[in-house]
């Protein structure tokens, strides 16, 4: 039995600012994981990753990250990816600052 594919989102860091971004169905990058394209098919995910990586003038280091579907859109499943949606825990910097979460 092949291993079952875990749903994914494509994430990267923005080239100029370096902050975390997620790849949308519109081929754009959003600072909010909820806007990300939710990928449930492995072949499609690999193809989308290639398309995302082709935007080398916008982002750096695109990769597939595990995700689950939540009420407002995709959500991270691993704590590392969850931190990337917020920012560091020692100061209110990063996305938590911009989003006033």
């Amino acid at each position, binding site marked *: 039995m092949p291993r079952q594919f875990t749903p994914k989102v494509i994430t990267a860091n923005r080239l100029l*600012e370096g902050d975390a971004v997620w790849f949308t169905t519109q081929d754009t990058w959003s600072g909010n994981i909820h806007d990300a394209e939710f990928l449930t098919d492995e072949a499609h995910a690999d193809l989308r990753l290639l398309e995302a990586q082709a935007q080398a003038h916008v982002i*750096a*280091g695109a990769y597939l990250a595990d995700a689950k579907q939540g009420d407002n859109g995709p959500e991270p499943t691993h*704590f*590392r990816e969850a931190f990337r949606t917020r920012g*560091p825990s020692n100061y209110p*910097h990063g996305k938590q600052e911009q989003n006033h979460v």
Partner: protein
Amino acid sequence: MYKYNDFDEAFVRERVAQFRGQVERRIDGSLTEDEFKPLRLMNGLYLQLHAYMLRVAVPYGTLSSAQMDRLAHLAETYDKGYGHFTTRQNIQYNWPELKDVPDMLSDLADVGMHAIQTSGNTIRNVTADHFAGAAADEVADPRPVAELLRQWSTDHPEFQFLPRKFKIAITGAEDDRAVIKAHDIGLQLRRVDGTLGVRVIVGGGLGRTPMIGKVLRDFLPLEDLLPYTEAVVSVWNRLGRRDNKYKARIKITVHEHGIEEISRLVEDRFTAIKPGFSGVDQEILREIETQFAPPAFRNAPTDAYDAAYAADPLFRSWADTNLTAHRAEGYAIVSISLKKHGATPGDATADQMRVMADLARTYGHDELRVSHEQNIILPHVHKSDLPDLYAALRSADLATANIGLASDIIACPGMDYCALATARSIPIAQQIAERVEELKIEHEVGHLKIKISGCINACGHHHVGHIGILGLDRAGVENYQITLGGDGTQHAAIGERAGPGFAYDEIVPAIERLITGYLALREHEDETFIEAYRRLGAAPFKAILYPQEARDAA
């Protein structure tokens, strides 16, 4: 202090100009990330979890006031108003934007600083005893040699594509404050029969496979240092395991080939290359030495200090923990703690940096040091100035009296910033420090080194902490392993793993149990944690950490 000559100045400026061009070409799309990444790493620029990070070298941990002021300027202009001093005596900026980095490097070049070789598979920033030139127990100031090594290793054509990174640390004292036995090469200046020479230690390192360095030469004549060091790096450059990055460091090469074989190869190589060193390196060293001449220490009464010490219990407490004996009569070495309880270890705001720079200018012969323990040192302060200095530190929130105590914790940035981290370390350090402050026990506990790393690479030196904490990802959850009995001094030892790890919300109570448990175990008030551990072994400490298992076994 070393001042750039025309060559240094031109070289650093040229590198800034080159990097400016590289950044422009990355932004306009002419360079891909794969092409750009090695170029940015050569200039200390990382891409982390939330932003870019620029790592600036503080060579052998020495700064002038003007340099510290410039670090404050960078923090304020290009970052979020603070910087993070690291365990390699560097400073890291956590929030720069790519387009600003060439300007940051240019601003640094104005004060003789750079970020070259703070990353990549090269010889990294040479670190030194943070009390160098001031310590009472020193045979010679190691910084001229460290500066010589910096010049030799910077852009050294043979060593730009090493199997892995390479770290050199140097001390001039028997009391090792530079963790020389946990470096690829550790150097100790020694005087034997009136002659200055060097003990060369090789193959130490922490990380995935921690090793204590081995003595390669017990006493190397000082004039042979560069050819000999070059021979060591050269032998490893050929033998080092480029097939496996986890086996590429020299500690593995020494382990696999044995110290005798490495020694034979190094001696052969040394004999071969020595004639190429015409002695010009020694001329340069003499020139560097003049720039590290000790300041003009003054002779003055210390009555003001004695009076404040007798009258003010807060000053007394700070003086007892944060001062170290100076080699000059009437002087003290001041450690400024960047470990206020609950604050991020090693962080200083731009304002605090400016205060420290001002204090160095007014009271400290214009010198500051960054310690690998993430504190700032004013190496030369006359005791009569200490009451005023202390008052100024208090108003800048820099007077925490905890050097060497439980809350003086080393912590790497961990998963709050670092892309390599497997767990957070900063919040663990913050919570431990807050807890010991609530309990008001750290002065009673005394000397205790707690060191925290957020991944196996061990930037937080956890292996050599009396209590080491390693943050891991266990099945998608943060988990913290404790090691006990580590030591980063001349009695270097790798800590032993105590047992199963603890969850994020269990680790601080576990450390509290260890600390209070030690108080019950010690023979007398002067027996430190590490001494009690050495006397008793791991068993009673494990029983404290894992009370359930201890009960089950009973």
